[in-house]
């Protein structure tokens, strides 16, 4: 499986990952190599085999519906790069000019 530079660009966009030209080249080559290695999975017969996504055997674990005190606003915001009047500042979703 060969990953083209265009595919790498597309994946980087999906992952919201800023990559340089050089990185796109490098990952195209390295990811292709890894995918080639991973291709050996196709030689394993998995007909009628159920997938394992979790090994704990737990399912829909519920907690009691009780309220607990949460962290103070100050502490929650202490690591934010931009904040205003007790809010996180994010990029605008719509371009309001």
């Amino acid at each position, binding site marked *: 499986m060969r*990953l083209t530079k265009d*595919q*790498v660009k597309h*994946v*980087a966009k*999906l*992952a*919201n*990952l*800023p*990559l340089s030209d050089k*990185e796109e080249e490098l*990952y195209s080559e*390295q*990811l292709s*190599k*890894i*995918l080639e*290695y*991973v*291709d*050996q*999975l*196709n030689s*394993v017969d*998995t007909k009628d*085999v*159920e*997938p*394992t*996504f*979790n*090994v*704990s055997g*737990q399912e829909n*674990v519920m*907690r009691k519906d009780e309220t607990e005190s949460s*962290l103070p606003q100050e*502490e*929650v915001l*202490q*690591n*934010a*790069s*931009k904040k205003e009047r007790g809010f*996180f*500042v*994010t990029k605008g979703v719509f371009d309001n000019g």
Partner: protein
Amino acid sequence: MADLTSLTLTQTIKALEKKEFSELELNKAYLERIKSINPKLNAYLETLESKKGIPTAIKDVISTRGIKTTAASKVLENYIPSYNATVINRLLENGISIIGKTNHDEFAMGGSGENSAFGPTKNPWDLTKVPGGSSAGSAAAIAADLCTFSLGSDTGGSIRQPASLCGVVGLKTSYGRVSRYGLIAMASSLDSIGPVTKSVEDAVLVLEWISGSDGYDSNCKSKKFTMQPPRLQAGIKGLKVGVPKEYFGEGLDPKVKKIVQVAIKKLESLGAQIVEVSLPHSEYALAAYYIIVPSEVSSNMARFDGIRYGKGRENIGAEVKRRIMLGTYALSAGYWDDYYAKAAKVRTLVKGDFEKAFEKVDVIVGPVSPTTAWNLGEKIDDPLTMYLQDIYTISANLAGIPGLSVPCGFSDGLPVGLQILGKHFDEETILKVGYAYEQATNWKKEKPKI
């Protein structure tokens, strides 16, 4: 007092009880040693002026309230958690103090300790070699006597492999044994927290402290682990020890192979019955792992948007980016069935291999790593070769079972570890085997000269 820092955790507790020295003297001795030795190793990213309690070192992917937790990444270089991981609260309740946060591969992704944004950790046995990874600093700090014990995390060997390469004890706990609350997530279906220690007895004690459900990790519903000394010291007479032929084939360094075989003979001489077993899907485990892990990584890493905490995504390091890219690709439209679902089915087969083997044997033993510590920089440009170093450790994570690395000798002056794998939630038996082996050999008395 010169020997204070060479004591194991268990010995330290006994000495404190007998008032042979004070907690202040203990912390001072470790801090002084860190000051003189850490610049050579880069095992610690940060140290704290700890004055009381029993000093421990915590891998910097485990959240510590009010103490910087960087995940060894530029992204979190200024991040200060507002809460403790459950394991931290449990340690604090038991009179443990944090003496520092240890270095590791960025976001725990790597097998050499070189992927840290803050420089590689060095192996105490040879400063030109890697300590293994990702819990590089946690293992190096134990080997160099820079703390009484440390915590690491293991997603594909990140506790066992550096423990092996640094000649110390490392325990990967069963999936669901220890709460992951507060551990910065890497691959959520595989991540586990466990101790790195100077002795097997110490690993038992730390597991007793940190295990058990907390209500914050839905996969952790287990009771607290307890193991009284007589059970640890029960011996291994009649115990069935499985040796998988797949773990001794091509790729295993002949000297490492010899040392591990001698260790297995030792178990036999202690009364264990050696049985050959087969784990036929082992050869596909790594391929499945390198789909499952990057997929889960790409999802977990999406939270780092630089808005609520941390810096922007342009600060993510090379290996982490590589895994995000691989995972995003594997999970993208049209590929999910071919990659993630396929890998999850192979995972079922790998897990099934162990279940079948454990019908016949009590534990499975083999090498931890196919080689001893390699040169710094040697494999960093070739990700696939680096991934192949995890070949004997990843299967345990796919199956969710516990694994222990115990020192079992030296090859050209570098440590070799014996891996002991057990049934899900049967830490007790692997610890018993590790203890019996450790007591019958003298490897733990060997210390690096730094």
